[in-house]
């Protein structure tokens, strides 16, 4: 059952994601991703020139060439930003969407890599989103590499991770050093807590870390009004959570 806390968390995470979408001309959200979808529409409310597409939502799907078009669009360099989830993320930015343990006899099996094998390589600003911020999710080294965080010189690699947004913090990804750097800790959480919950080493500036911004009142009006309405088709339960119905 949805609670007030769930609602606040959803509004907050949508705003945190929208913050890292800032300034991109084109943005796409995969299927089955309610919070990123809300965040994308919020980013578009903030910047009306942003072209947003949400897979699985006919009203926000501008593609007419079948299921392969998004990947063509990304491979051509036309897609500036995409959100990817993962079973495991490691400190080098590698993503695992497949399994834990031995690949042939896994202890945990996830659905699979979806489009990550191309999108993570070609979309300049990939935002990795995993609400569960725990050593189980954020690991030293992923058990299976669906897509690598960086590539050696000479490999065509215009894309890759730019941000990691979790339930506790926001990280930037430093491609040169192939590691995450803490950008902000969410309100109500501490740096110590983030360190304890993160299974990989990350860079961190000295002193008290920045606090992730809360959604503005305008953001909340958008999210609980027109954005919730827009999501009613694809995500009815989530839309009702946002409006508080």
């Amino acid at each position, binding site marked *: 059952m949805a609670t007030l806390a769930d609602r606040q968390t959803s509004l907050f995470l949508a705003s945190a994601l929208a913050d890292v979408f800032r300034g991109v001309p084109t943005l796409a959200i995969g*299927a*089955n991703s309610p919070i990123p979808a809300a965040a994308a529409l919020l980013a578009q409310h903030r910047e009306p020139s942003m072209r947003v597409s949400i897979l*699985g939502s*006919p009203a926000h799907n501008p593609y*007419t*060439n*079948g*299921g*392969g*078009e998004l*990947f*063509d669009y990304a*491979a051509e360099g036309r897609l500036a930003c995409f959100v990817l989830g993962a079973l495991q993320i490691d400190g080098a930015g590698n993503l695992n*969407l*497949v*399994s834990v343990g031995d*690949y*042939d*006899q*896994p*202890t945990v*099996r*996830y*659905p*699979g*890599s*979806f*489009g*990550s*094998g*191309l*999108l*993570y*390589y*070609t979309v300049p600003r990939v935002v990795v989103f995993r609400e569960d911020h725990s050593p189980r999710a954020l690991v030293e080294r992923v058990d*299976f*590499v*669906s*897509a*690598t965080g960086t*590539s*050696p010189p*000479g*490999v*065509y690699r215009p894309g890759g991770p730019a941000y990691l947004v979790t339930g506790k913090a926001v990280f930037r990804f430093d491609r040169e050093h192939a590691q995450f750097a803490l950008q902000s800790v969410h309100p109500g959480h501490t740096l110590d807590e983030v360190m304890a919950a993160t299974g990989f080493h990350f860079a961190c500036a000295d002193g008290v870390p920045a606090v992730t911004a809360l959604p503005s009142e305008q953001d909340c009006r958008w999210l609980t009004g027109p954005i919730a309405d827009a999501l009613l088709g694809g995500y009815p339960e989530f839309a009702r959570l946002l409006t508080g119905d």
Partner: protein
Amino acid sequence: MPESVPLDALVGRIRDGQSLAVPSDVGGVSMAATRALIRRGVRRLHLIGVPTSGLQADLLIGAGCVDLLEASAVSLAEHGVAPRFTDAIRSGAIQMRDATCPAVHAGLVAAEKGVPFMPIRGLIGSDLLRHRPDWQVIDNPLAAEPDPIVLIPAIRPDTVLFHAPLADRAGNVWVGMRRELMVMAHAARETLVTVERIVDTDLLADPQRAPAVVPSLYVSAVALAPKGAWPLALHGEYAADDECLRAYAKAARSAQGFRDWLDGYLG
């Protein structure tokens, strides 16, 4: 010219051990034909999810119809993991060829175009690539500098099976926005289609509909199957039956629960 045939005759064209390509759960899945296939007891399928699968793969796997699965993902979307798929992977009951969505599309496009492979960006350094000896890295022969790139071999399925809103008497099939179904039909040796309705007009003669029609040239057989995607959605026709899917996701957590649910579903 393809015939309009009864559903059992349609699935009768799919033989044990064949490769069978199917769309994703939102792309027009012929659940009617899936039921008929399971009833018939098809075996040893090489199932290809284009580019993913869900309920359909889970049912076929749970019913013991699948030896080899090739897909970018298998899940029940908002209803969680696909339990029979997950169980079969962990027990080693099926062989898995993990892919990534654009690689599945690339393989089908190669088959559609009659070429042995398509290049694709990405994948370099991944375990996806390491586990796919059929995917090969070459140095881009057209680049001045070293430029490794992956080649995906053509995917030419023995059979493609999907469900669409409508066909005409000549076997032309309107797929609307699901253009990947057209690529699949072009790529396959046989294309079998179930439809909601069969119309008496010529779909190719309708300037509005024709651009989204799979011509009968590529269609081997059509069967009428109203509500043929149920409990999945058919875009523009009906939504998914979420209650049914939720019940499935819960029941199929155990092998016995799956069998009971399947008995009810097969009717």
